[in-house]
């Protein structure tokens, strides 16, 4: 029975992880940097959701929609920052996002205090019991929203013109530019999608766990790990990676205890990075 429980709960959690990673992966695609402030963007979305919930009684899905739209606006400051960094080496851009993470974390500490908060809503108590395993409404909602948004993203990237242009930009911005794709606009679109998906994940996160301004980094690490595993510009890869990750995580927690959840998280990242010898032969294919 714990096996089945881990499988179902892990799948549900994993679909949400896929959503958590989606914005991160798109941002990586267009900006060529891992955004280490991603977790903080998710938390900004979470705080927006908590506020909507407390003041207007919004449920998690409404809150996610509004927070997503709000956080999409992050594209403008992000693009301005990225274009101003000199010299723009990969490492400096990565360090910039590290600094941004620290900045947002402290701004949130100032604005929202270090208290732990949770998004409470009327249906939170509802529990579904498939095959004798109990799954709470929060987890199911987050999973369904994750799966839905990943599906929409997948269709957008595969079936629509702007989606295909965005994918081309992710693969090779220069070549895309030569083909007449407006690369700067695509970057803006990618950053907006990245911020929007992060923001939408926020209120859902707040139904799954307590949030506080300092819980961002592990979220970033999950997104980072799934992006390395699942690839950029493909929502289905992220969904699959998310589900696998979620299942293993549930198994680790069930078999070894919750203290080892983070060990799995960072261990998985460390192992996945081992395949990433960049340098010479990846970027330099010119005859």
């Amino acid at each position, binding site marked *: 029975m714990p096996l089945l429980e881990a499988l179902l709960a892990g799948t549900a959690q994993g679909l949400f992880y896929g959503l958590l990673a989606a914005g991160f992966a798109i941002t990586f695609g267009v900006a060529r940097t891992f955004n280490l402030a991603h977790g903080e963007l998710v938390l900004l979305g979470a705080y927006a959701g908590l506020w909507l919930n407390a003041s207007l009684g919004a449920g998690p899905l409404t809150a996610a929609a509004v927070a997503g739209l709000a956080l999409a606006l992050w594209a403008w400051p992000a693009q301005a920052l990225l274009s101003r960094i000199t010299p723009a080496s990969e490492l400096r851009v990565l360090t910039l996002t590290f600094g941004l993470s620290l900045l947002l974390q402290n701004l949130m500490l100032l604005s929202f205090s270090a208290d732990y908060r949770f998004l409470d809503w009327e249906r939170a108590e509802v529990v579904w019991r498939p095959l004798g395993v109990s799954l709470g409404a929060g987890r199911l909602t987050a999973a369904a929203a994750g799966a839905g948004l990943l599906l929409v993203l997948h269709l957008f990237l595969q079936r629509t013109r702007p989606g295909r242009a965005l994918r081309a930009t992710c693969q090779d911005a220069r070549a895309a530019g030569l083909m007449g794709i407006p690369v700067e606009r695509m970057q803006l679109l990618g950053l907006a999608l990245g911020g929007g998906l992060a923001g939408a994940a926020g209120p859902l996160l707040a139904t799954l766990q307590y949030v506080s301004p300092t819980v961002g980094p592990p979220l970033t690490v999950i997104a980072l790990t799934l992006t390395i595993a699942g690839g950029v510009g493909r929502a289905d890869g992220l969904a699959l990676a998310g589900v696998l990750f979620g299942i293993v995580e549930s198994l680790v927690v069930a078999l070894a205890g919750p203290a*080892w959840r983070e060990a799995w998280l960072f261990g998985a990242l460390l192992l996945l990075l081992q395949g990433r010898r960049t340098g010479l032969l990846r970027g330099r294919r010119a005859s």
Partner: protein
Amino acid sequence: MRGGWALFGCALAASALPWSPYHRSLLTTGLLLALLTASWHLLALGGRLSFGHAAFFGVGAYASALLASRAGLSVWVALLGGALAAAAAAIPVGALSLHLRGPYFSLATLAAAEVLRILAANWTSLTGGTWGLVGLPPLPPQGALVGAGGIGALLLVHTLLARSRWGVALAAIRQQQERAEALGVPSRPLLFATLLTSAAFAGLSGAAYAHHVRSLEPATAFSLLFSILPLIMALFGGTSSPAGPLLGAGVLYFLDELLLQPRFPAGHQLLYAGAILLVLLGLPEGLVGIARRRGGGRGAS
């Protein structure tokens, strides 16, 4: 280089002054952070920006604390043990990270530091788990000198590098690793040696810190902060000479402790966020860069 020795002289002189206990304590912590930052910079010479020096800081802290409190060794011996333990921890960390470049190296060190933190939190019989260790033997009164002494030793390492072929070899690896290797520079062994040295000094800093604050828990000893601070302080000071990281650490730490923390206890870390954004967006060579441009554009190192 000369700037580095001048700052070392300042540190020694400051350690000898009769400060109040409060200010002496600040000075000790500041010097230990400067040592941590300088150790980070040594590895950066080889083009490897660590996001995980908290790993070595934490291992050094725990090893020294355990050697002094459980094995009953004198604090001085325990400090050395801490440095050695950190170097030993650098062996697996290096094996999992040094073949990576750029962002991938940085992220691997970050993950490695977190794995070590989790091990420390769960190896309860040795480390006391998340409760940590308390009542550690204190740093002797001359303890403030550990930071200054470590900095002096690191400056000696820099001098040796500059006088031998290894200094230019590290620069070559940093700038164009394939070409350096094609010219016979043994990059892996050299980077490994650099990482071990860097880790030993970071470990010494953590070890002294443990006896200075006299209590340890995994969440603080391996805190992400001890990975972020050396990165920010070194880039803020400027990485083109050994003086930069020392200057950056000194300026930021004392600004934070003396001016900001008393007034804005909640958000004082905004200083560090602001410093790093400033450097990346408008001050590419850090404080040392300003000094150099003022001084007529000549290299000061």
